[in-house]
């Protein structure tokens, strides 16, 4: 795209052409209270590139970045190693565009990539069909709830207490406008997830049950009984996964009877990226539900000469055709992140993914064994993949996390931060371990945690 600066004359000509008196007239639809009434405070109108670089560098230097310290943060976003070749491949001119090209006549490369991405996600999730991706895990979670209400024609969603609270929050925000009834709760601090408590909340009005796997505390359980309880009343089971690497080691949700499987794909190929853009994954187990899916779907077909080719398919579900009756108002996908996911997946291969998962779990077990030996620290989980919950004596975990950061260790995510105001969770710390964690990192965390907890108890 060329950069063409405008003169004041250009601007007034354009405004005159459309009958607007000023630039501000273009924003009359935005309520006055939401508009800026002048320049942004403390931000100079302009500065030289070098001055801006210097300023930003100085600010960035104040961060303790993931790569600069032993790092144990997870809770829905994981630090994994992304091979340099991923970044190189996704930046090739054949792939990198400002938007996702869907026209089959000119975009076979992109469409084939999306088809392969969908195939990978479907296999990973144990499902029949995956879409070409959504914005992120939390929006995919909402879309699953919305889809379940369409399929079952019921309006009540039962959310597991151990679903990531940010995901619950997104579902609640959207449901506020759709009238769906959301039933959720905070997680119970116990070694095993309370699946009986969850299934007891399912009733005849339930459209879907939403369960995270592994859950927010890192626990893993067989969800088959939840699927059976949901299906018994004609409800769907939605399984949410925030760590796709785990599926290289544990059973695919589709194999346990999940009807819709959604999640975050950031772990594979995307990187932490300061929290986004991320990658929403969405798949259905039963092909009969495909027409109720949200988002883009790429399909395989043959051209006029009988050659294999790829097209977007079942587009009549989408907003540009169905307008207000579309399955979703999402008309796009996270094309570049999906490409990165797919490239990383191809580089790993099935065997590589299994090995990566095994390595994550091995290091997490080392960490759990070591941290359990720290006085004043208890491991909550009976089961975990690469993330587990520790119960800390003394000060709330939020304070211990801050203290650890001052000691140069990014020690985890406190549940107090995720559930402000829930007293029962104040002393819980979520610790994530990936292949990027070294045994020295684990030793450093154990040492500093011991000092921090001891200091807190005195």
């Amino acid at each position, binding site marked *: 795209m060329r950069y063409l600066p405008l003169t004041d004359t250009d601007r007034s000509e354009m405004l005159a052409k459309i009958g607007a008196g000023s630039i501000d007239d273009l924003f009359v639809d935005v309520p006055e209270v939401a508009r800026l009434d002048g320049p942004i405070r403390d931000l100079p109108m302009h500065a030289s590139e070098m001055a801006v670089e210097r300023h930003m560098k100085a600010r960035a230097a104040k961060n303790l970045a993931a790569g600069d310290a032993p790092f144990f943060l997870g809770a829905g976003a994981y630090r994994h190693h992304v091979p340099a070749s991923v970044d190189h491949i996704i930046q090739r001119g054949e792939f990198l565009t400002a938007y996702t090209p869907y026209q089959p006549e000119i975009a076979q490369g992109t469409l084939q990539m999306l088809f392969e991405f969908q195939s990978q996600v479907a296999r990973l999730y144990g499902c029949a069909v995956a879409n070409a991706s959504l914005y992120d895990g939390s929006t995919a979670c909402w879309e699953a709830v919305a889809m379940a209400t369409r399929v079952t024609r019921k309006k009540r969603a039962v959310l597991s207490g151990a679903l990531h609270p940010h995901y619950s929050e997104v579902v609640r925000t959207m449901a506020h406008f759709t009238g769906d009834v959301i039933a959720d709760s905070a997680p119970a601090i116990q070694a095993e997830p309370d699946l009986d408590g969850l299934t007891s909340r399912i009733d005849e009005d339930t459209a879907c049950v939403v369960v995270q796997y592994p859950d927010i505390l890192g626990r893993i359980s067989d969800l088959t009984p939840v699927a059976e309880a949901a299906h018994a009343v004609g409800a769907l089971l939605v399984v949410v996964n925030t760590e796709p690497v785990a599926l290289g080691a544990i059973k695919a949700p589709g194999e346990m009877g999940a009807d819709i499987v959604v999640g975050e794909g950031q772990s594979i190929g995307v990187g932490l990226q300061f929290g986004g853009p991320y990658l929403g994954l969405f798949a259905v187990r039963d092909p009969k539900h495909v027409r109720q899916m949200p988002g883009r779907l790429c399909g395989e077909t043959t051209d006029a000469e009988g050659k294999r080719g790829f097209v977007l398919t079942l587009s009549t579900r989408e907003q540009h*055709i169905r307008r207000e009756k579309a399955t979703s108002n999402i008309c796009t996908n996270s094309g570049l992140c999906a490409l990165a996911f797919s490239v990383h997946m191809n580089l790993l291969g099935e065997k590589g993914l299994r090995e990566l998962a095994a390595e994550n779990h091995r290091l997490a077990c080392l960490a759990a064994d070591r941290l359990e030996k720290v006085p004043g620290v208890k491991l909550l989980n009976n089961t975990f993949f690469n993330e587990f919950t520790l119960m800390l004596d003394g000060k709330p975990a939020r304070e211990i996390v801050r203290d650890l950061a001052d000691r140069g260790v990014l020690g985890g995510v406190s549940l107090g931060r995720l559930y402000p105001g829930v007293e029962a969770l104040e002393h819980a710390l979520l610790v994530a371990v990936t292949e990027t964690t070294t045994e020295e990192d684990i030793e450093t965390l154990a040492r500093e945690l011991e000092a921090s907890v001891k200091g807190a108890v005195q």
Partner: protein
Amino acid sequence: MPRYYTDEHEWIDVEGDSATVGITDYAQEQLGDIVFVELPSVGTVLDKAGDAAVVESVKAASDVYAPISGEVTETNGALEEDPALVNSSPEEEGWFFRLSISDTAELEGLMDEKGYKAFVDSL
């Protein structure tokens, strides 16, 4: 069995207090190859001129409206397997649903075959 037509290109056969509804030959021809039909579920109460079903061709989706009010008593399951029946036999095998008529007075104002033909010719 009298047959009526709407200006939205639905046909309706009336038999006592029950009626069968589908879309006309003209409608299927305008739509092109039909790939999917979304039917109302049995027990749904439809309002005259309200949304009743959706018919999808490769590139478009069109709403099908209820010619009169009533409760859906039966739907054509054959369309699930073979939506192209709407193309090959729109006014017989490709019927959409049956309903119990709430108010026969609503039939007044619908077109007969002759009236509908004249209406299509005028389009």
